[in-house]
């Protein structure tokens, strides 16, 4: 009969089963226990590694036989990484619902909505502004957009689009605001480009017209110069006119005629004729003289007019010169507009955001933080609860009274935990590699090494927690608290830049922050291990944590006694 058949777990059956066993024993006859007294080969110094190995095997067996633990420890990370990698293996937002409101949607607003709707956003128009804002407060929509009434591009417009965002959803609020702003900015740029284009065309026309005016003005100027010269010549000619005629002394010709008459003895008729002729000539002369006087007077007037004309021509020339100078100024001013490219005027400075990473999806961005978070939590919990379990185990006393040093147990526990976490890390990185293929394999190997180093630190911290606490519950709470503090004061929830000075300085030395930087460098920028100076700090922390744990273990044993 098998003993397993004899025994049952029921307390009531126990006595009966023992009786059966005793009967079976009696039937089996007398036993020889002499083997008990044999001197066993046990006093020899066994290789400490052999003990170490046996403790690790024991830890593994216990872990594997606690099936739920084994499943959680091995399949948990696998599942998490698979889900996260499938879920976040994208580079865009999907179906982001946005509430919008405007008292009257203008064509411009509609065009904007249409533009936004063509992307990853679903714009839902709501009836009132309050509804729009309340929808954000209630979490129905992450963003509410308010378009101004009759939004249009004209001189009287104040085209302010208001976004109401739920800032508590920092991660998505910032992303949506940024994307919306950029989309609106694109539309605004298009509008600006139209307006600026018009201005530039006008300037171009001005330039051309000024050029034409300038050539006209040059002709005018030339003509004026000619005219001025002509007038000067005319004036000179006029000035040269001598229209002075002295009055004739009529007594002279009369005496001469008398003389001639006397000398030539002219008849009176002849004399009269001659006198008449002379008088006619005199009269003619006087007439001419009168005309000359008139001409002189007229010439003076002409001279005056010519001078006036000349002065006017000169004045016109000055005006033309002035106009010319102004045209030149206009041309110079228009010509001084060096940037004539519409795009350059609308967006004189452009921000070009160039990714430094080859892979462009959300998964690789969250991968470092996710890996660190998982490794940190698992390391803390597995080691703290492991130490507590060992402490609570009634077998711990037997461990204690064996000739095995506490250091051997400590090392064995560390090696057990680190090998489990190393395996988990390998699984997680293996799953990651399925989704992110363009990261070199060596990067994964380096990441594994970094994670193992990181896990070492938190295993020692977990062992420290397990040593100072006495119950699984308190150790778990302490571990989770440490994990939360480490996580909160990292870049994962809020940027470190939001922290105040001293705290920020301290948080820079948060192992989570340091390790995240290193893993980001590795995955996103293919940084070399040599460039990761934080690694030395982490190694220092590990040394410190290990030392504290060992010292605490020794002190605890001493205090206990």
């Amino acid at each position, binding site marked *: 009969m098998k003993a397993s058949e004899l025994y049952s777990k029921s307390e009531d059956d126990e006595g009966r089963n023992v009786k059966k066993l005793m009967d079976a024993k009696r039937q089996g006859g007398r036993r020889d226990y002499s083997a008990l007294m044999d001197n066993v080969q046990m006093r020899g110094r066994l290789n400490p590694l052999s003990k170490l190995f046996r403790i690790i095997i024991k830890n593994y067996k216990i872990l594997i036989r606690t099936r739920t633990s084994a499943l959680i420890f091995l399949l948990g990370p696998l599942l998490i990484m698979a889900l996260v990698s499938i879920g976040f293996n994208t580079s865009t937002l999907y179906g982001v619902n946005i509430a919008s409101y405007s008292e009257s949607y203008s064509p411009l607003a509609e065009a904007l909505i249409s533009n936004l709707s063509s992307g990853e956003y679903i714009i839902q128009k709501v009836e009132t502004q309050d509804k729009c804002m309340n929808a954000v407060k209630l979490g129905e929509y992450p963003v509410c957009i308010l378009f101004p009434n009759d939004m249009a591009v004209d001189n009287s417009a104040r085209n302010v689009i208001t976004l109401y965002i739920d800032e508590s959803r920092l991660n998505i609020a910032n992303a949506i605001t940024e994307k919306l702003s950029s989309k609106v900015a694109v539309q605004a740029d298009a509008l600006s480009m139209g307006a600026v284009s018009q201005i530039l065309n006008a300037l171009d026309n001005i330039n051309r017209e000024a050029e034409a005016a300038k050539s006209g003005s040059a002709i005018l100027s030339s003509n004026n110069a000619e005219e001025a010269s002509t007038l000067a010549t005319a004036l000179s000619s006029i000035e040269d006119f001598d229209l002075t005629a002295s009055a004739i002394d009529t007594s002279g010709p009369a005496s001469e005629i008398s003389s001639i008459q006397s000398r030539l003895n002219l008849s009176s008729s002849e004399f009269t004729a001659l006198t008449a002729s002379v008088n006619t000539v005199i009269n003619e002369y006087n007439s001419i003289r009168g005309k000359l006087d008139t001409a002189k007077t007229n010439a003076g007037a002409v001279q005056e007019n010519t001078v006036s004309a000349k002065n006017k021509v000169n004045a016109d020339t000055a005006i033309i010169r002035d106009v010319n100078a102004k045209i030149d100024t206009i041309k110079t001013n228009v010509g001084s507009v060096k940037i004539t490219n519409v795009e350059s005027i609308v967006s004189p400075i452009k921000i070009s955001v160039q990714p430094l990473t080859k892979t462009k999806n959300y998964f690789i961005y969250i991968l470092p933080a996710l890996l660190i978070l998982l490794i940190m939590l698992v390391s803390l919990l597995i080691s703290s609860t492991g130490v507590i379990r060992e402490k609570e185990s009634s077998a711990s006393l037997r461990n*204690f009274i064996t000739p095995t040093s506490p250091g051997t147990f400590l090392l064995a526990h560390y090696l057990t935990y680190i090998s489990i976490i190393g395996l988990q890390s390998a699984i997680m990185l293996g799953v990651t590699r399925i989704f992110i293929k363009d990261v070199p394999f060596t990067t994964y190997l380096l990441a594994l090494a970094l994670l193992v180093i990181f896990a070492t630190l938190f295993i020692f911290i977990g062992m420290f927690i397990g040593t100072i606490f006495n119950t699984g519950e308190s150790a778990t709470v302490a571990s989770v608290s440490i994990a939360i503090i480490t996580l909160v004061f990292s870049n994962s929830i809020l940027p470190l830049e939001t922290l105040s000075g001293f705290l920020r300085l301290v948080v820079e030395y948060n192992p989570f922050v340091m390790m995240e930087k290193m893993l980001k460098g590795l995955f996103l920028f293919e940084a070399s291990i040599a460039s990761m100076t934080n690694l030395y700090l982490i190694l220092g922390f590990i040394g410190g944590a290990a030392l504290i744990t060992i010292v605490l273990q020794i002190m605890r044993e001493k205090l206990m006694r």
Partner: protein
Amino acid sequence: MEEEAIIKFENISKSFGRKKVLNNVSISIPRGSYFGIIGLSGSGKTTLLNILLGYWKQSSGKVFFNGKQIKHNKSAIHTNIGFATQGISVYPLLTVKENLAYFGRLYGMKEESINKRSKALLDLIDLTDDEDLLAKELSTGMLRRLDIACSLIHNPMVLVLDEPTEDLDPVLRKEMLALIKKINDSGKTIMMTSHMLDEVEVVCSKIAIIHNGEIIETGSPEELKNRYSKNDEIHLSTKPGNYEEMLKKLGKLNLSNIVLKRNKIVLYTPSAEKVLKHLLAIINTGREKIISLKVHRPTMEEVFEYITKR
């Protein structure tokens, strides 16, 4: 001639804060003996064992093993003492065989020795057929036996047992005591604590009574009983039970005490044979019919009660 002591506690005191748990305790455990330390819960039994094992450090006093102070020779304790606690010091998720192998390896045993020793121990504790069962699948009695086997895996000279029959039903307790006796018979010194005075009385060759952290008596069960009770007890139950008349006829016959109970009478006397002879004669001559008649020495329980309450 004083027996050779394998373990000796010399003026051991231990305090936890202001509370003094042990006060100037001195005991010698003879080699090969079955030594019982009895006391009420909280009397300091387990503390004394823990000091022996080095789990706690005494506030003052010395502990010797094989004549050497253990302070300077801790490895002697580790390698020569096996210890079974009140709880079961085995891993529930390891099999019977794996538990033995694990602790054997921690004791520095080689694989071959572990196998040989495990086989013998499994045979001793009757778990050979169950060696591949997980410890958590064993019954309480089997677990206790496995615990003892784990204590013996390194073939210690002394087996220290802290309340080994605690939580066991009478059948399993008897089984366990038989097993421990067997181990003692194989030459090992047994040091056992218990508050089950009846079992200690039966199995222990020497007893120390600890009370309020002090050893108040030491000796074999017989010595203690003789020391504290010279009387035998005669328990008589008759029908119709006219005890008063019987007592009148008996007269003042060297009786230390008489206790009349509802349906029986208990007579305390240093000369039980003489009193019994007279009593039977009275019954034979009268109309009384014997229903039950028992004569026994006072139990350790009674001695213990007397000592601790005096």
